[in-house]
């Protein structure tokens, strides 16, 4: 995705991949344990 749409990496200031964006904001960078990933999504839903 990033190589085909590089402007997305700029928009979300993604310094690494994978970067997960929730509702337009980067919330997880890199691979993390499942519990941390879910926690980030729950917080983003806030």
């Amino acid at each position: 995705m990033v190589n085909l749409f590089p402007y997305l990496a700029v928009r979300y200031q993604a310094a690494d991949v994978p970067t997960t964006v929730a509702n337009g904001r980067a919330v997880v960078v890199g691979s993390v344990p499942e519990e941390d990933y879910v926690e980030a999504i729950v917080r983003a839903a806030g």
Partner: protein
Amino acid sequence: MSQITEQDRARIQRGLRDLGGPVVLRYYTSDVDSWYSRSERALLEEIAGASPHVALEVHADRWDPGREATVGIRRTPALTVAGARDSRVCYYGVPDGYELEVFLRLLHAVAGGPPSLGEASAARLRALARPVHLEVLASPT
């Protein structure tokens, strides 16, 4: 993107052997022919040809904001992946390189395979009060 290798062909065959249900891939791309679009389409045709459960629809049209809003995609090339019901999963770009394995697992998830999330995680996500739009930026290698 390179041409499909024998290794990728074998991965696709192996990866879709026990797909549990129907999957429809809708591929939205530009109407402008290019080496890139031909390569991507060849990969998707290989995937669709590897399982009787996978159907491929190709929509090579001009950008149409009205249609894209209806379909729920934001840019092309894009793939929507639907099982017995719409999964609302969009894949942008080409499921090439290491992404191919991830993509094949996605097809299993959409086809109704066993959930890969733990029960506690699934319960937390089911309890969300508001919708969350998730995008995962990846880079095939």
